[in-house]
């Protein structure tokens, strides 16, 4: 890409500069780099300084700079049989802060992304209720609303890594996640409108898509913090995220966040449908499987440096950053190690710390140019410490597919290139 090439000269400049800076650091005094010749980007007039830019209506709905064209969702074709019942990945290595932009939130469909005119959308509540009901989108928009930031992590995130290091990049190993601000109606208010009967202990949520996605949700969770959401990051849900209506199930596996939500049925027993028997059950080493593994445990990953985001600037001041999250609460602390877990340092948390939301951490250090084995370890507000992959395998074996929240290791070599590895 031309934009990458334009960075090449400055990368060489950085390398020269940092060699000088490294020497200065060793002697304990800060000496900034000197340019050999004047920079033409400064001494020569540039077109963006001379000619007028685009007018205000050039892009009624704006897109990122063309120089950010690599910040896109990517898929791994060999993972699934086709691209309709499939997955793609959020480019975590290109992002900062905690909010995922709507256009690059990962997608997971089982029957493709249904395109529904909101005027044609209906939400039905039936089963063990006083009055089975039908709501239009207009009805739903008249209920009291709430705003919450939550992570949505696919139960299969990092699932390809159960048996060992496989995909080279945090986008692929950890990118089945996004974190957005949802606006929606508490599910409780809609259920109360229909009147849940006393034996109504379970809720079946069903999508309007071709997969007819269904999941059973215990009534306790439904009445606690679930939302029926119609907005994400301030605007309507994207089509691929369930427009016009999706279920928000904070802290719980993404499969339960039914998109294109069309029906809620109250019952006295779970339904044991395909997505909670054949799929989203976790096979253990002895051949038995856990069912209803809803909550996503504390997890973290270093997003920079990482295989898709190598260190290009050479030795010297280096920003290590990453994300952490827990389905059980907030993340008050993340530890990082540069030597594969031998010694740990407490990272610096920055930004909002919200319940069941992504958190951002930083660790700034002076890289001396020697190889690194980077790891991060999240500790959530319940005291749960993110386990190693080896600890997970001791309890579960290698065939669980889902719920892999093990500690990730990146090997960084002398050139700053990073690789997905396992250590022992």
């Amino acid at each position, binding site marked *: 890409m031309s934009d990458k090439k334009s960075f090449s000269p400055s990368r060489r400049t950085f390398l020269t500069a940092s060699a000088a800076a490294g020497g200065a650091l060793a002697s304990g005094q800060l000496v900034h780099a000197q340019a050999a010749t004047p920079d033409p980007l400064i001494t020569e007039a540039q077109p963006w300084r001379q000619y007028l830019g685009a007018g205000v209506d050039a892009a009624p709905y704006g897109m990122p700079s063309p120089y950010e064209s690599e910040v896109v969702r990517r898929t791994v074709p060999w993972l699934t049989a086709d691209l309709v019942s499939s997955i793609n990945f959020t480019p975590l290595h290109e992002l900062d802060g905690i909010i995922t932009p709507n256009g690059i939130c990962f997608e997971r469909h089982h029957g493709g992304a249904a395109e529904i005119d909101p005027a044609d959308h209906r939400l039905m509540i039936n089963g063990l209720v006083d009055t089975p009901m039908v709501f239009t989108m207009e009805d739903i928009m008249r209920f009291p609303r709430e705003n919450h930031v939550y992570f949505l992590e696919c139960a299969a995130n990092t699932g390809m890594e159960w048996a060992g290091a496989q995909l080279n990049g945090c986008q692929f190993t950890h990118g089945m996640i996004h974190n957005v601000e949802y606006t929606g109606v508490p599910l409780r208010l809609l259920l109360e409108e229909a009147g849940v009967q006393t034996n109504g202990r379970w809720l079946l949520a069903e999508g309007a898509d071709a997969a007819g996605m269904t999941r059973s949700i215990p009534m306790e969770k439904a009445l606690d913090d679930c939302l029926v959401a119609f907005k994400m990051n301030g605007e309507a849900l994207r089509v691929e995220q369930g427009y016009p209506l999706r279920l928000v199930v904070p802290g719980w596996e993404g499969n339960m966040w039914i998109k294109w939500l069309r029906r809620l049925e109250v019952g006295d027993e779970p339904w044991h449908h395909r997505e909670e*028997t054949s799929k989203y059950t976790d096979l253990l080493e002895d051949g038995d499987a856990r069912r209803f593994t809803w909550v996503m445990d504390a997890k973290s990953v270093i997003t920079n440096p990482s295989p898709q985001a190598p260190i290009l600037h050479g030795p010297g001041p280096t920003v290590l950053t990453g994300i952490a999250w827990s389905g059980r609460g907030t993340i008050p602390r993340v530890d990082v190690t540069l030597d594969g877990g*031998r010694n740990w340092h407490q990272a610096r948390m920055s930004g909002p710390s919200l319940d069941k939301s992504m958190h951002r951490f930083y660790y700034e250090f002076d890289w001396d140019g020697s190889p690194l084995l980077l790891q991060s370890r999240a500790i959530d507000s319940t005291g749960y410490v993110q386990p190693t992959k080896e600890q997970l395998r001791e309890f579960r074996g290698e065939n669980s597919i889902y719920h892999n929240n093990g500690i990730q290791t990146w090997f960084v070599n002398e050139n700053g290139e990073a690789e997905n590895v396992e*250590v022992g």
Partner: protein
Amino acid sequence: SREGGFGLGRAALPEEVAAWDWDVRPDGTGLPVGEGDVWTGEELFVDYCSACHGDFGEAVGRWPVLAGGQGTLTHEDPTKTIGSYWPYLSTVVDYVYRAMPYGQAESLTPDETYAIVAYLLNLNNVVDDDFVLSNETFHDVEMPNAGGFFMDDRDETEVAAWTREPCMTDCTDGAVEITMRATVLDVTPDEEGDDTA
């Protein structure tokens, strides 16, 4: 709407509930009335299903394998099928009727659904080839892995073990070694425009 509520929405009509509420539970609640035999199911399966799932449920390419694999759940590479893994027959009826064939959902009649499911049961050696599956014989079928599942027990088995102050310094015996590398497998998609020069 309910008294004391917001007065929003309207009562659902019985025809509307019937049109959308046809989910099936393990106890048979929600089963459509109908029946189908193994031989009819085989013909339907070849017409509607085999292009993805193979003539005998063995699957084409990466499409799901539907038959076989019994006794493999403890293997290094388990084959999880209707016969080897699924706990309930209701799930098969519900899912086929609701979501299959892929790309033509809601096109099967209850009789066709029962026939296809009967054939799938036969492929998995769960029923003989003269079996007729219906909303009534449904209760006679027991799935091989019905007892293979248990409720999430992470809180009891794992969380306590991992809820303690972690080690911060000199946590390993000496230096840490790399035991596995993703670049050896080399299965990550190339990034367009990646400039490694």
